[in-house]
């Protein structure tokens, strides 16, 4: 499987339907693991790094995961291919920019990925569409059990699973949800969400764009404490307590907009739709921003004949590497903006 083949298709967890997916786009659980007999990446020779890559990829590829899996060599991949994998959240930016023998095992539906030789020897994650953290944990825990039959993890009685950075030590678990919170943003209440997250020791990140920019009102919420907690409890806290509360805030904000500012709301949605349907050049930032408004409109029933799947797909397919691999060549910024606008116009016209 070549990464380029992914450029035209949506992914099972991003584009798809799932419980509560109007607000919680997707759920993810990640585990960080290291092999017992090896140094961490910072002190590893290239030869031993290759050994780890061989060992772990072989172990994971031999599992029956109920879904076809394939290996991609990140070290030998072209820059654009690495960027595509990053845009699809199959590998991290750090993994794309890393050094030496490294790779990723991906399941055909992209709901399971295992980065080998990122910051830790193994970082695997399970994704699900919508709000479904419990299933993600069950699945990744079972996969972890199977891998553990084949390799020995670095583990200490006191510190648990040992990780290269002490911020992940213990369970090595990162539980996260991707949230779309446009109404909280529009009503100036995003602080409410950030405060709730902070009180619970959770990290908030903008989903698209660099660093802290929350382009298009997409946020990723995840646990930070990994030591001295049970995996099930981390999952439960987010899935039974924090996330439902944030979803309620967003729903309330949407209701307020519908009742008190229906014209402001419709104006924002329809203007966004108008620009997307007619623009000839559109930057990825502008696209994210406008698609976010249209997505809200679809969720509130203000845009008939347009499906959430189409909108979700557009978020993914209009990112820079996706566009260029689809075009089959490098494109400069203007050419990308033109192709992006064209794809959006076509998709929206068909609906």
């Amino acid at each position, binding site marked *: 499987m070549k990464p380029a083949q992914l450029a035209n298709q949506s992914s099972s967890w991003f584009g798809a339907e799932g419980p509560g997916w109007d607000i919680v786009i997707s759920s993810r659980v990640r585990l960080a693991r*290291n092999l017992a007999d090896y140094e961490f990446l910072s002190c590893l020779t290239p030869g031993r790094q290759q050994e780890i890559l061989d060992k772990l990829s072989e172990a994971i590829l031999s599992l029956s995961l109920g879904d076809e899996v394939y290996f991609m060599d990140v070290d030998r991949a072209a820059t654009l291919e690495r960027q595509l994998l990053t845009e699809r959240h199959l590998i991290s930016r750090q993994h794309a920019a890393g050094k030496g023998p490294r790779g990723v095992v991906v399941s055909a539906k992209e709901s399971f990925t295992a980065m080998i030789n990122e910051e830790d020897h193994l970082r695997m994650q399970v994704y699900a569409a919508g709000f479904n953290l419990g299933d993600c944990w069950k699945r990744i825990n079972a996969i972890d059990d199977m891998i553990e039959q084949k390799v020995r993890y670095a583990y200490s009685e006191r510190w648990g699973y040992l990780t290269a*950075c002490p911020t992940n030590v*213990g369970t090595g678990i990162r539980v996260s949800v991707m949230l779309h919170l446009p109404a909280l943003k529009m009503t100036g209440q*995003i*602080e409410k969400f950030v405060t709730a997250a902070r009180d619970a020791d959770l990290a908030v990140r903008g989903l698209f764009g660099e660093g802290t920019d929350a382009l298009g009102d997409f946020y990723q919420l995840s646990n930070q404490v990994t030591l001295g907690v049970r995996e099930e409890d981390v999952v439960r806290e987010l899935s039974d307590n924090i996330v439902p509360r944030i979803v309620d805030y967003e729903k309330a904000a949407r209701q307020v907009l519908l009742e008190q500012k229906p014209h402001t709301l419709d104006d924002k949605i329809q203007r966004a739709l108008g620009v997307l349907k007619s623009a000839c050049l559109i930057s990825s930032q502008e696209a994210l921003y406008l698609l976010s408004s249209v997505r809200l409109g679809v969720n509130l029933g203000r845009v008939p004949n347009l499906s959430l799947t189409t909108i979700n797909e557009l978020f993914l397919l209009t990112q820079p590497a996706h566009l260029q691999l689809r075009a089959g060549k490098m494109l400069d910024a203007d050419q990308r903006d033109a192709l992006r606008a064209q794809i959006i116009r076509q998709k929206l016209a068909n609906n």
Partner: protein
Amino acid sequence: MLCQICKENTATIHLTEISHGQRRETHLCQRCAQQQGLGVQPQIPLNELLSSLLQAAKTATDSQEKTVNFSHPDKTCPVCGMTLQRFSETSLLGCPEDYKHFEKELGPLIERTHAGHSHHCGKVPAHAGQEMKKEVELLHLRRQLEQAVKAEDYETAARLRDQIRQYQ
């Protein structure tokens, strides 16, 4: 410095994210930061907290607050060669043994980044226990072997090689 988003107002909120030893800085004005959901008191990412604790440790005086003391920044792990100094620059350790070798120095740091927790209470791998000791010993022997070979001490190297074989 101008805000990176609106490019109009002066940036008053400066965020530093440190991951994988790389620094990324973001400069925003208050309005844009608030719109981005970052508020006036942005949440401190754990990595940053860890780094600032490490910084504090480096410049620590006799204050009561002092929980970490890297009085020996050149303390070195015998297995991988990692030093406390290098760790404080990147937040990354060199090998599993570091958790034991630097336990005294790392302990308070780890507790502070994990809401005061100091012991694992989650999943336990089936192989844990006995196996652990063996692994650490093996890593250690391998390191000694490397040094013996480097020093052209082939007698010691041969002995170490035999020991490693016995373990495996």
